[in-house]
Every structure is written in structure tokens, then in C-alpha cells.
């Protein structure tokens, strides 16, 4: 893997679903990855060598992620993989990269409580989104929460953490419903009817994928008012809002490190370049941004190491900083998770988020919530 006197490309693996119920968001993660790779290659590659992505489509099936990860490492001889949205897919790739000593770059928020020497986590952990979201919702809307989630690891774990936050802040959870991953439209009507009866102050959604659209549309169809009882989420980004319709998304809240509307030069230039390639009406989003900046962090690291060997890459990437579209980010050397910005946005009629809260600096990743006491005190 040493690169003296060679123009051989740096081969990397890319695993995002372009088909199946997770394709809406993962397609944007794939684009973020490819935009970054193209920009790097247009600027002459890394130490004179271009990056060559080897891309597979796991089709939204968790098991396929493990199988493709093995294929990438064993047959394609790749050691670095960019990929995964759901926690189930990450957990399928985990044993492969751990045993064969690869490096997975994971650009998605998740429920925390994980650490692997073979993963770099560049999405938000609960202390970087849930804590502030809970606080803001209680201040603006009230203390009675209703949970709706897709039935898999991330929603159940996120709800567990959210519940702790709410309980310890004197709030309550007045309902909790799960729908199958890839649920159909009809699954949401009974839930909306229940919500109308229970009358919570806030609906906290951990529904992911295509079903996100059905949830918000069912909400709109039954005539609930986002000014009174908004849906709050950690996953509903510009991509999902566009899918459900701007009128349907308007007034609902999301906590994320990045929104397209973040006001800085780095982001303006990023959005400009992205839209030049994919079209002026294509929004960016948090997962796309994380996919984009993590490839850049990888490239900066590789430039120094000139080796893709996982141990060397990992040692070198720890503590490194990058001026991402969301602002300055760094890879936290304790956890191998990124220190990111906390923002809360409210969707407007243009399908963009108006930022209602922004952290003064980036927030250190704390995947095991060690800094939040025994019971996530609300202060």
C-alpha cells in the first residue's frame, strides 16, 4: 500500500443503498462521498494518486452490508470503507472491519454507546443533538412527549435516552409506538388518531427512511397543527422534507449538526458546488455533509501517512481538524467520534430549516454520556 513512484489509484469502498426503503437519504450520502472524491481528484488526488471508489448497493438490507464489506475487503482488497446509515447496517459491517482490520467511516447520527478501533464516527451522538433538543422542546412547547419510531436498534435506544432526559427534566412520555422498518402509509393513521386523543405537546419521531414521508403526511392529513404539537426529530433532514412536500414539513423541528441554511462561507461554497453538479433545487443535508467532510478528513490524513493501513490511518486521524460546511470539526481522540456543532432547525415553506438554536462552539462527542451524570441532568 506504500505509494512511492506510482500513480495507482487509492481504492476505497463505498456502501450506501441506492435502492430500497433507505435510498432517499443514503443516495445523498453517496453523492456527498462522490462530490468529495471528485473534488480531491480534480485537485490532483492525494500525493499524485487519485481516489477510486468501489461502490456497491446493499439495497437497504442490513445483512448485505456485512456481505459487501467482506467482498470489498477480501475480493477488492480495500481497507477503507465509507458507508452505512442505519445502526443495523453498521453492526453488520463491524465484525468484518474489526476482524480484517479495516476502517469504516460512518457519516450518520446514531444512538451512541459504541466504540470500535475500526470505526470513525462522523455523525452526531445523543449529547450532540438529543440533550439540547429536549431542552428546547420543553421551553417552547411543553413537557408531554409522544414517541413514534421505526422498529430497530436506533429508535429504541434513542427513545431510551430521550426518555431519561424527559423524565429527569420533569416531563413525561405519554405514548410510544413503533412501526416496521419500511412501513406502509396505512401504518400511521391509527397512530395519528391516538395522538389526537392523547394530545401530547410534542411528537418525538425516530421514524427513518421512506416511512418518514408517510408519518408527516398522515399528520398533515389529520389536521394537527405544528405550531402547537410539532414533530421533532434527529433524522428528518432537507432530503426527507422535500420528499414529503414543503407544506407538509413546515413548522416541524430537527436537531442536527448541519442544515443547508448554515451561514458561513465554507457552506455557501459547498452548497454552490453541490448544486452545480446535481441541480439548483437539490438540497444538502446533515448526512450528506458528514459524508462529504469525512472523505476530506480521510484525504488530509492519507496525505500525511501515504498509507492506507488502518492502524496508521487511525493513529494519524485522531485529533485532526477540518473546516467543514457546518464549521470547524475535529476527530475526538478519546472516542474516534467527531466533535460537531449542535443546531436546532424549524422547517420553513421553502423546505429549508430556520435555525432556532446554535451551540457557541462545536460540542465534544461523549458517546457513553459520561459527562451527563448518572441520569442526564437537565440544567
Amino acid at each position, binding site marked *: 500500500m506504500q505509494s512511492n513512484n506510482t500513480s495507482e489509484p487509492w481504492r476505497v469502498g463505498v456502501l450506501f443503498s441506492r435502492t430500497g426503503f433507505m435510498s432517499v437519504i443514503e443516495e445523498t450520502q453517496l453523492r456527498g462521498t462522490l462530490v468529495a472524491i471528485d473534488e480531491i481528484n480534480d485537485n490532483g488526488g492525494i500525493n499524485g494518486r487519485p481516489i477510486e471508489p468501489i461502490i456497491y448497493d446493499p439495497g437497504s438490507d442490513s445483512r448485505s452490508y456485512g*456481505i459487501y464489506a467482506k467482498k470489498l475487503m*477480501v475480493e477488492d482488497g480495500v481497507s477503507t470503507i465509507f458507508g452505512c446509515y442505519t445502526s443495523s447496517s453498521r453492526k453488520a459491517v463491524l465484525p468484518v472491519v474489526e476482524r*480484517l482490520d479495516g476502517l469504516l467511516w460512518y457519516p450518520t447520527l446514531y444512538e451512541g454507546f459504541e466504540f470500535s478501533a475500526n470505526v470513525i464516527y462522523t455523525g452526531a451522538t445523543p449529547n450532540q443533538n438529543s440533550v439540547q433538543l429536549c431542552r428546547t422542546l420543553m421551553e417552547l412547547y411543553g413537557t408531554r412527549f409522544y414517541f413514534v419510531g421505526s422498529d430497530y436498534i436506533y429508535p429504541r435506544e434513542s427513545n431510551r435516552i430521550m426518555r431519561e432526559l424527559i423524565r429527569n427534566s420533569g416531563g413525561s412520555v405519554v405514548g410510544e409506538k413503533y412501526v416496521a422498518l419500511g412501513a406502509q402509509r396505512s401504518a400511521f393513521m391509527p397512530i395519528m388518531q391516538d395522538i389526537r386523543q392523547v394530545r401530547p405537546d410534542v411528537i418525538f419521531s425516530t421514524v427513518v427512511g421512506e416511512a418518514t414521508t408517510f408519518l408527516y403526511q398522515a399528520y398533515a392529513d389529520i389536521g394537527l397543527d405544528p405550531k402547537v404539537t410539532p414533530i421533532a426529530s434527529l433524522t428528518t433532514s432537507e432530503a426527507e422534507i422535500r420528499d414529503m412536500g414543503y407544506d407538509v414539513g413546515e413548522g416541524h423541528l430537527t436537531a442536527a449538526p448541519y442544515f443547508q441554511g448554515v451561514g458561513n462561507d465554507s457552506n455557501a461554497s459547498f452548497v454552490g458546488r453541490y448544486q452545480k453538479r446535481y441541480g439548483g433545487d437539490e438540497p444538502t443535508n446533515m448526512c450528506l455533509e458528514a459524508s462529504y467532510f469525512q472523505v476530506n478528513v480521510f484525504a488530509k490524513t492519507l496525505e500525511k501517512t501515504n498509507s492506507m493501513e488502518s492502524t496508521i490511518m487511525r493513529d494519524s486521524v485522531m485529533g485532526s481538524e477540518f473546516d467543514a460546511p457546518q464549521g470547524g470539526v475535529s476527530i475526538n481522540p478519546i472516542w474516534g467520534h467527531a466533535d460537531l456543532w449542535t443546531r436546532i432547525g424549524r422547517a420553513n415553506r421553502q423546505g429549508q430549516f430556520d435555525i432556532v438554536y446554535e451551540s457557541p462552539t462545536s460540542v465534544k462527542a461523549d458517546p457513553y454520556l459520561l459527562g451527563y451524570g448518572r441520569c442526564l441532568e437537565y440544567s
Partner: protein
Amino acid sequence: MSRIQLKSSPSITGIRWEPADENVTTRCSAMANELNGAGPPAGRSRSRKSPDHGRRHSNLDVAVIADRTDDCERLLRELQRLRCNVRHIWPVPPQLPTQHDLIFCMLTEDLPQRIPWIPGEPKAGLVVIDPGEGELDLKLIHNCAAHGVLHYPVTARSAQACLALAHDHYLYEKRLRGRIDKLDENLRSMRAVERAKALLIRMKDVTEEEAYNYLRRQAMERRVTIGAVANAIIDSHELLS
């Protein structure tokens, strides 16, 4: 994984060899005599210093996937002598079997693709067999995520060491994975216990020690984990409030 067979006599009955071809059976009985009879079998000067340790790997279900050469015969014979339940398979099946404790398999170019499990989650210990010709492909061996390599020509000692080490490594890996799962689970339980304790202290006006004792007593009486009791208390408190 390994089945423990309690046999009163050290007879051949503890050994099962499922022959893949017919002429194995005859050889098997010849070997039985050798095993039962006095005097050391094939191989030289066997140390009897720690007979217990020598038995650690007996009764293992072992598959040998290799061409029927003299080396292969030597390996089969040695495994028999070590009281393994041996099954010979050839050619390499499209997917390796998963019901054995340990598999010896000829190293082929496409072996990683024939391994049915995801690297890091093996369903059996795996020893790849290097026929001893041509350049050794270390990357290929890495990709098999094997627990050992046996080089031809086979000696009794090398077969024995491979069997023992590979099985040890496989079990050790399994224990480590189990420990990580357990730690993850404990981490969650501890948070639940802390919360349940805080609830009890507040609601029942007891000390921290008393709250913990209460949780422990409940867990013992109901024969469930303390984490389960804690979660039940948290859930019911939420339902009531």
C-alpha cells in the same frame, strides 16, 4: 460445541469417523486396534507429562477438507488418535459446513468466498492447509480470518499443535466477543439500576443502601437480573405517573 461423551471403557466407541468413501471403514478398525492396543501409535516419543491437557481437544467434531494424499491420511490418522470425531470431505464444497467444531481446509484462491460466515463471527475454528508448494499468499490467509495454518508435509506434532492452538484461539475469540456483549449489556443495566435506585430513594424515602438491597432482593426472588427489575420499576413508574 464439543459434545462430551461419557464412556466407561476407552474403547473405539467414543470415536466416530463418517467416511466420505468406502475404504475408510476398514482402515478405521485397523486404527482402532492401534489406539486400543499398547504402545505408542504413529509418531514418535509422546510425552505423557500432562495427560489431562492432551485430552482437552478430544471428542471434537473435526472436518478435514483436503485431497486424499498421504499427508491428508497422516492428518486424519493423527486426529483419530487424538480422539476427534473426524469427517473427510473432498472436493471443497461451495460453502464450508458450519456444524463442526474445527475445520481443516485446503487453502484455495476462492476459499474466503466459500466461508459461509462473516469474518469476525466464525461458526467454527478454521485451519487452512498450505500444500507447501508455490509462494505463500499471506493476504489470502489473512482474508480467511483463519485460526491456524497447517503446512504439508504433516507431522503428528504439527497436526496436534494446529488442532490445539486453533481450537484455543477460536474459543478465546468467542469468549472475548461474549465479554464485549456482556459489557454492553451491563452498561445499559447500570444506567437502569441507577435510575431505579433514584426513584426508590425519592418515592419510598429509603437510603441508597436500602434501595439497592430492595432491587437485589426482588431480583433474587423473581429469579431475574437486577437490570430487569430496575427496568420494570422504571416502566411501571412511568405508567403510573
